[in-house]
């Protein structure tokens, strides 16, 4: 990205202080979101989300696997993000690895639970087929196609949309398997169960520039940030995960304030997302 001149930096900071950002938005107004589902036909579920010039694709693939010994009644979810060099030349070769790793870890914190699997945003108990023996493994892959800031929120939205679009094939387990034998399974090609995404949280990132915080920063605004807090909130208003990124230290009262702001913003975001996803699915059914 081309560097910003001092005049441009002052303009961005001044605008944010006066509640008028460079593209005319207010501090807490996100960019319009555009969601398309079913973009990758080979995946069980997929979605493409556009927020301004930020464009990300998420795909969900389901494979049969074995549950872990610690949680025999739950399936497994793996989240991985890749930054495509089409988004920026610096992602060529291994350049994008650091950012990919950071995004992957942040998404895992926000959407998956702690080590024991408790408190996960994504319901994994519905993924078990035969307790202790067979479960579904969901591989969620994110790809950043074009980057203009706020990648984490866009990826979170894309994953939520992709999960809504996911159809897990119905599995018929052959009766009569006993002991340690792997039961025979028949994976149906016809019938699919829709994955339940009502509890999947949405991620809101608040970026602090100067004394104020903004929602949905563009990459220019992000270059001026002192710190950023990403909070994932679900429909019930519960916080599912929290990550603080960026160098400057924050007063604890500011963090609490940011959390309450995020909760208000996330309500709107979840509503917008849900209606966009419903529209996308309806549009896809028609075509």
């Amino acid at each position: 990205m081309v560097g910003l001149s001092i005049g441009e930096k002052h303009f961005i900071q001044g605008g944010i202080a006066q509640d008028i950002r460079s593209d005319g938005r207010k501090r807490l107004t996100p960019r319009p979101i555009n969601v398309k589902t079913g973009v990758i036909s080979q995946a069980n579920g997929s979605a493409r989300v556009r927020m301004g010039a930020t464009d990300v694709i998420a795909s969900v693939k389901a494979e049969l696997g074995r549950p872990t010994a610690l949680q025999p009644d739950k399936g497994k979810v793996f989240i991985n993000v890749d930054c495509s060099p089409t988004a920026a030349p610096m992602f060529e070769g291994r350049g994008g690895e650091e950012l990919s790793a950071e995004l992957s870890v942040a998404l895992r914190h926000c959407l998956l639970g702690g080590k024991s699997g408790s408190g996960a945003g994504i319901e994994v108990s519905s993924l078990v087929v035969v307790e202790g023996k067979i479960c579904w493994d969901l591989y969620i892959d994110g790809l950043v196609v074009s980057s203009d800031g706020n990648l984490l929120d866009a990826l979170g939205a894309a994953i939520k949309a992709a999960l809504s679009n996911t159809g897990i094939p119905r599995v018929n387990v052959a009766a009569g398997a006993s002991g340690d034998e792997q039961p025979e399974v028949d994976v149906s090609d016809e019938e699919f169960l829709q994955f339940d995404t009502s509890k999947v949280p949405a991620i809101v990132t608040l970026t602090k520039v100067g004394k104020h915080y903004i929602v949905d920063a563009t990459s220019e605004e992000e270059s001026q940030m002192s710190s950023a807090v990403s909070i994932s909130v679900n429909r019930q208003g519960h916080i599912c995960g929290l990550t603080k990124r960026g160098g400057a230290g924050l007063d604890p009262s500011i963090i609490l304030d940011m959390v309450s702001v995020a909760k208000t913003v996330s309500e709107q975001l979840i509503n917008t997302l849900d209606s966009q996803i419903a529209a996308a699915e309806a549009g896809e059914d028609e075509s």
Partner: protein
Amino acid sequence: MEYVSPEGLRLDGRRPMEIGVVGKADGSAVFEMGNTKVIAAVYGPREVQNRSQQMFSVRCEYTMANFSTGDRMRKPKGDRRSTEISLVIRQTMEACIMTHLMPRTQIDIFVQVLQADGGTRSACINAATVALSDAGIPMRDLVTSCSAGYLNSTPLLDLNYVEDSAGGADVTLGIMPKLDKITLLQMDAKLPFDIFENVMQLAIEGCKAVATYIREILLENTKQLEYRRGT
């Protein structure tokens, strides 16, 4: 398995395209050939970044997304196939870009495969051509590419993954249609010479059909841009 459809020449009429997808890139395009979907972004001409590297004025990187193939891939970048395809695409595009008009600069072409169903090489070259046109980079001609094969005693155009894995020959051809010059020719397996001539001719026709389609879409796109400019 029935590989040959009753129609013989199976040019899939559906070849959608989106131009200008990646806002930050100088030029970009999404190209679909059947189920193969590829996105290309062009950055340049810009200052040479790393002088210690070899002085190639056109660089290319080919990557496949994790979810692009039927089974999830573990290592999308840096494996030998990707390196080879990056090299092939670079050489093909270098032949048609007028690099002498832009000395001491570099042009980066990044191609990302979103869905792979055979013919990814060809789809990548076609997408790169459109992206370069979108970026306004001077080229001698469009470069289009198409694959052709021979199964069940019939030459087939644009093989998908199943047909490609069937064990017959697979010819990938890249051509500059107006100049009628071939810039890329690769073949797997073996073919008797006269059949090879047929298959190559079929591939050339396929390339020319793709070129006509690309030209239509680019013209349409330019008209849209002109309309939006208000002239």
